[in-house]
């Protein structure tokens, strides 16, 4: 059994619950080009199979996305979406439907301001070779600079920068712990601690973070500065659980703050 079995089971259970409206991700952009670029960024940040739903003025558009690839536009779709696009698996960027889909989405974004995004586990499976990578989509849809720094890069830059020897961390993607750092042998304990913390965190997330946010950070520390404290961060679908002594954790949180402050 994986040393993170309990944490991963907790995450799987919790992520199945759709967060209430306060989950809060949204595409933002001043024009349809910027919104389409933000949508491509959203695809680029999605690793596990997901049904991403975008609330556009014409109705919700659902996209099947996995492994940073757009696989298909899923039904039901608003009337404005050409029927041949709905549930059509996109094998690669050469498929003419890719261009049509980009044009359709852009036209539907013309009247949109902020576009709320919901992410659900995907029930419809596609073969692993189906899908157009986000960067190829960006080129096909003539998006100049769709990604400044992806959430994945931001998170990795942060974790790579933790050089406090007494700190430990877990990098979490969806329901899986994909990397760990810190003192040898501490990972199992970290997994247990993260499972306990996240049970309460996800249950009360909407009380703590009422406004939509691209990233959320939570630091909790006791008064004894030599005892460990926690710093949990979420960005896109990625997260990390970090522990370090109370007198070090503020510096670690400050490093994160510098990366995400807008």
């Amino acid at each position: 059994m994986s040393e993170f079995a309990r944490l991963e089971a907790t995450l799987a259970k919790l992520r199945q619950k759709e967060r209430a409206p306060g989950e809060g991700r949204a595409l933002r952009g001043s024009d349809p080009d910027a919104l389409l670029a933000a949508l491509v960024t959203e695809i680029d940040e999605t690793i596990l199979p997901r049904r991403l739903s975008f609330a556009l003025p014409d109705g919700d558009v659902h996209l099947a996305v996995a492994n940073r690839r757009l696989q298909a536009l899923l039904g039901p779709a608003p009337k404005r979406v050409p029927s041949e696009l709905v549930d059509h698996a996109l094998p690669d960027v050469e498929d003419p439907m890719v261009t049509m889909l980009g044009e359709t989405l852009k036209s539907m974004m013309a009247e949109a301001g902020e576009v709320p995004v919901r992410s659900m586990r995907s029930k419809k499976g596609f073969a692993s070779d189906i899908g157009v990578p986000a960067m190829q989509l960006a080129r096909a849809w003539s998006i100049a600079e769709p990604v400044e720094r992806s959430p994945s890069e931001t998170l990795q830059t942060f974790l790579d920068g933790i050089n406090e020897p007494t700190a430990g961390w877990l990098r979490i993607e969806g329901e899986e712990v994909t990397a760990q750092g810190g003192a040898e042998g501490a990972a199992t304990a970290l997994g247990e601690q993260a499972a306990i913390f996240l049970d309460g965190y996800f249950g009360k997330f909407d009380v703590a973070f009422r406004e939509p946010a691209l990233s959320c950070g939570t630091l909790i520390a006791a008064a004894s500065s030599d005892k460990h404290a926690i710093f949990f961060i979420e960005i896109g679908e990625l997260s990390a659980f970090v522990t370090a002594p109370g007198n070090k954790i503020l510096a670690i949180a400050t490093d994160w703050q510098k990366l995400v402050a807008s």
Partner: protein
Amino acid sequence: MDITAELDEMRKAIRGCSLVAFTDLTSKLVLSTSAAAAPMQEEMNALSEAAGLALDGAFAEGAAPVWGGEEPAELAILMTGEDARLFLRSQANPAEALVCVCGATTDLSEAAEAARATLDRIVSAG
């Protein structure tokens, strides 16, 4: 002691700080506030609720095993790319706390240090 004056002084000393409040965690009542612009009651209620969650509620309970669980949470920060809300519990009177709403680039260590000093003065005078 003029608590509002203490809060005003702290707010002005922290770059990017827009609101400081002295709150009772047990009753979830905000006892005194200093703000750059008058806050809506809804905002104050949300801050009180978040303070309770982070220092006494599910967040604090979930974090406590990391430090052994013998003592309550003293400091909590909820941050996004746009702001940071800092909650600090008094050591002398664990039911009282300071809430500080800071900008995204506010120096967190400086804010925590200022909050600790202000809270100590308020509680010891009270």
